[in-house]
């Protein structure tokens, strides 16, 4: 009888260790995913001065947009706290989008090789940021599901594992659900 109990206890503690370690592993992956977003945001901050420098000459008449971009960048760098940071980054995103829409009006800029290169870099950076967020959300969801499902939720409660927060779209235009016209003509 005691033997059986001992074996049971052994198996249980092995399971316990395995679950605990897998939770630590996942948690670190989530943290790493979060860091990756920061890396990509920094890449964008570094690219912007170059971009503005390149288009400045040809876009004399768009001074306001250019200053907006630079200001948004500086604010995003200075921002502290996750919520404020997310908000400033979104302001920067829309300022950049506006700038690229304006570049379309300048044929000599569009055909400029350096501008094309920078544009590609910025498109890539925007993609990297959204893919980093996507990866973060995927891995965080996986972590959360693991934490909350039985029987792992007993262990996660014991060791005070907290679920990861998901990255949400803060941009108002992105948040709006697509409008569907239900009127049949």
């Amino acid at each position, binding site marked *: 009888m005691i033997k059986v109990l001992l074996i049971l206890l052994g198996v249980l503690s092995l399971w316990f260790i395995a679950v605990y370690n897998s939770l630590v592993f996942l948690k670190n992956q989530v943290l790493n995913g979060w860091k990756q977003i920061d890396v990509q945001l920094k890449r964008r901050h570094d690219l912007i001065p170059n971009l503005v420098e390149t288009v400045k000459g040809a876009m004399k008449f768009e001074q306001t947009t250019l200053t907006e971009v630079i200001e948004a960048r500086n604010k995003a760098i200075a921002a502290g706290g996750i919520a404020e940071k997310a908000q400033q980054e979104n302001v920067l995103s829309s300022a950049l989008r506006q700038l690229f829409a304006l570049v379309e009006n300048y044929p000599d800029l569009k055909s400029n*090789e350096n501008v*094309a*290169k920078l544009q*590609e*870099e910025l498109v*890539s950076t925007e993609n*990297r940021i959204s*893919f980093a967020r996507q990866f973060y959300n995927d891995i965080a969801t996986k972590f959360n599901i693991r934490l909350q499902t039985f029987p792992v939720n007993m262990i996660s409660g014991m060791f005070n594992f907290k679920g990861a927060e998901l990255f949400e779209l803060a941009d108002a235009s992105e948040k709006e659900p697509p409008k569907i016209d239900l009127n049949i003509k």
Partner: protein
Amino acid sequence: MNIYEQARRNKTWTWALVYLFIFIFLFLGLGLDYFYGIGAEFPVFTVIALLLGITYAYAGYRLGDKFIIYSTHARSLDLNNPKQKQWQNVVEEMSIASGIPLPKTYIIDDPDPNAFATGRAPEHSSLVVTRGLIDVLNRDEMQGVAGHEISHIKNLDIRLMLIIAILLGSVVLLADWAARGFFMRSRRGDRRNQGSLGLIVLAIWLVTAILAPLLSQVMAMFVSRKREYLADASSAELTRNPLGLAAALEKIEARTGPTRSIIRGTAHMCISDPRGYPVNQRQGRLADLLATHPPVEKRIEALRQMAYA
């Protein structure tokens, strides 16, 4: 089936193949010892064959990807070329999306669009494309292709495919060599094994030596057909845009011709069959057995369904 299950399976399969491979070497060595050896006190051929088999499998595992890349005359990307830089960016984006380290990127100067990934693990992986692929695809389509290849890397398809390529190549060589050795000896008239048991063993040994390359070929085909669908689906999961890959496959299919620079033994690694085999377009049991790639129309159809288009 998801990408993690697939990775686990690939690990198991890789080990199974390595064991099988070493076993074949052992078997051939035993046969050689039985017929030409100096006797049981020192099975010289068996020892040599075993050592060779293990060394070869290990060296192939560690260096096989470099050899394959070298044999296709692939070069590093030229990042001053806008299209190549764009491809590099797309690959980096996909590696971020999938959470694997950035693979090394190479380009082959071949006008036929194709791509493959190889390596033993995500930390030691390479992604090779032809110039043709980069030239014809736009950004979204490139992203689909990069996502497809990155998925092969992440779920360790590349490891299994690498082992198959290495073993496939060697087993063919080995069998040729064994068969030639046997016929040369028998012409000279070796009188040592006249018993019926000896003949039966000899027959089995010969059949194995002849069938081994055929079997490994069939295996390469069998393992890679389902994988393409899974990699397509995983790519769509990464890019959230299945239509990009569908459009890329359409373009690749339209310009299909043999990709001359990719050697025969690595056909099962590519996104589209470099041999331009018509059997890949057919459906049914036999085609399922013989083709290394599923019909492109079926892949495109599956991708379109993911997009509800």
